[in-house]
């Protein structure tokens, strides 16, 4: 008791961060397991690349949702609305730029797509701000009301899409240069999937870098751990939260554009279809965890693609089995967020 504390050496001061690598091995194991069942290596590569592309899209959509949950403890059932709105805005922009879209040049195509995505993300980001202000803010801390009211927001948003863009199904064509496939050896890989994988990796890397290497990221992580303390240190955590909500909505918009281009058709219900997958992904990943969300998205997409090939009838239900299996192993998801 009276002894003076020993001077702490540098290694004592900070215990090593324990990295949990086990979940990262899961997608690798799953794809290796699928190989003998699929049989044909070429088909297997095609399926795996398709799964990666799908996984990246789901990740882009789900990352914002899981971050908002981790930070603000708000589960936004209206997230699907941003997916649809993003896709519809991009549809309008692409229609305006039809000259660029139809040009037989990758550069012009990508510029058209880039512009459409930018407008869609700004639009859904602003919509996210409005949604947070009008729908979500009055019900912080009340889970039951949150679920109900964001559900109501989803209904209203979906109906407004019908009012603005009309109710019929729209065709969402890919720009000319992004159609078709690149053949490497015997394997044909669709160009759009390569683009999607690239976008997904960029978003993931940017998120990890911002969260782990910047001051804002530090505040966000601190805010997830203990919002009152961050507030007491003089930071306006509320403003940070709103910013994260807007970014999450913008990411949903981006994901919506990709998803609509991937499916090549667009209806106002597009959000609802993906949201089931998104929920499964964030449950598997551990609510609020970005890394878990990334692995969860890839796992879900792999499961969907392999089973769609092997046992088409149970493809979507297979995700439930995956979810149950993972929750048996880790009841809080792959990377449980400490506080919750």
């Amino acid at each position, binding site marked *: 008791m009276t002894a003076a504390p020993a001077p702490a050496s540098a290694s004592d001061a900070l215990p090593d961060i324990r990295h949990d690598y086990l979940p990262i091995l899961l997608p690798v194991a799953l794809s290796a397991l699928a190989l003998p069942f699929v049989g044909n290596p070429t088909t297997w590569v095609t399926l795996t690349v398709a799964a990666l592309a799908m996984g990246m899209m789901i990740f882009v959509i789900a990352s914002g949702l899981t971050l908002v949950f981790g930070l603000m403890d708000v589960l936004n059932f209206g997230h699907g609305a941003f997916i649809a709105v993003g896709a519809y805005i991009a549809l309008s922009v692409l229609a305006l730029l039809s000259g660029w879209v139809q040009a037989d040049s990758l550069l012009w195509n990508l510029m058209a797509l880039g512009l459409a995505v930018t407008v869609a993300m700004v639009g859904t980001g602003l919509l996210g701000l409005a949604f947070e202000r009008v729908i979500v803010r009055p019900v912080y801390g009340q889970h039951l009301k949150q679920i109900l009211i964001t559900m109501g927001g989803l209904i*209203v948003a979906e*109906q407004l899409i019908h009012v603005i863009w009309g109710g019929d199904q729209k065709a969402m064509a890919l720009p000319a240069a992004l159609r078709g496939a690149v053949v490497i050896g015997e394997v044909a890989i669709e160009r759009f999937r390569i683009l999607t994988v690239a976008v997904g990796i960029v978003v993931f890397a940017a998120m990890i870098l911002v969260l782990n290497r910047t001051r804002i990221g530090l505040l966000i992580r601190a805010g997830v751990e203990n919002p009152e303390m961050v507030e007491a240190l003089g930071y306006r955590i509320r403003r940070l939260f709103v910013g994260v909500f807007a970014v999450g909505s913008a990411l949903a918009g981006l994901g919506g554009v990709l998803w609509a281009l991937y499916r090549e058709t667009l209806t106002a219900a597009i959000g609802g279809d993906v949201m089931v997958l998104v929920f499964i992904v964030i449950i598997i990943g551990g609510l609020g965890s970005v890394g878990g969300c990334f692995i969860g998205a890839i796992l879900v997409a792999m499961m969907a693609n392999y089973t769609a090939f092997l046992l088409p009838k149970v493809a979507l239900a297979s995700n439930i089995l995956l979810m149950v299996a993972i929750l048996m192993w880790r009841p809080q998801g792959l990377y449980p967020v400490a506080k919750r």
Partner: protein
Amino acid sequence: MLNTLLSGDYPRSRILTGILAAIVLGLAFAPFLFSGAAAINTAAKVCIFIVLVASYDLLLGYTGIVSFAHTMFFGIGGYGVGLGLYAFGASWGVLALGILLALVVGVVLAFLIGLLSLRVRAIFYAMITLAVASAFLILATQFSEYTGGEDGRSFSVPQVLRPGYRLLDQPVFGTVINGRVLAYYLVFAMAVTLFLLALRVVNSPFGRVLQAIRENDMRAEALGYRVVYYRTVANCLAAGMAVLAGAMSAIWLRYTGPDTTLSFAIMLDILLMVVIGGMGTLYGAVIGATLFIVAQNYLQKLMATASTATEGIPLLPKLLHPDRWLLLLGLLFVLSVYFFPTGIVGRLRGKSG
């Protein structure tokens, strides 16, 4: 007598009593009061949804559980009756057996989902049930050789319930008592019985524990109630009641398909009905279901008139287009979560003190 029937849970508001009495009388004499197939169809649909919404209120309003899998149980009931009658012919035995099997399957499934996920928080449970319900919908449409897939199954009901059957030679008060009227009264009787049973449940000591869990589950647990046990039983009860509502729907429509029983749109309808009518008051289910279904049938006609009347004004005709009636209800829903969290029933009770 009335006290026993209503389990001592009176409407506790004059206006509410008046509205409820009007609804009950309207439903009880629907085949005689209204003419035409559309009106009796609406009345039957109201009966079915009162049961379905009341069973959901048992979960949402009384226990504070948000489940998105309620249509799954509704569907199990519908398919249990539908597939049974389709495969083995129209007899009362098959009908009873179909309902019984569906009840067993539904309750066991509710038990499993409950055990798996009722330990987790509301948000988690909502997501898991949404995923499970969508998987069930996909399975039902994929295994089309058994379920009829997207098209569903049409089937015959026992002879007494068919439109061609005549109970009496002479019309009563101008209405021919045929199989359709008998089928309506079967549905109506089931609805009344099930609703009174639900009232019995929520006003029993068991129901009080559910409400305690809704208010504060930690405190309920601390008082010695096994929260998981009570939640699971509530889940099973609500599921069983939803299965019976599905059976009623199948008997009335003589058809079972994904769009009429399993689709997410129906789940949304149930949610809207519970919240607008009033959570945690079974009478809210009656008001919500009636209001919603009448609005669904008649608001659209009103909106069509408004839409053509405002032609020429930008945007307004589009907003008032009859297909956009959900927009109005969605707004009403959001507003009622904010301003009238207890719904119409809570509002009326509050005014009368």
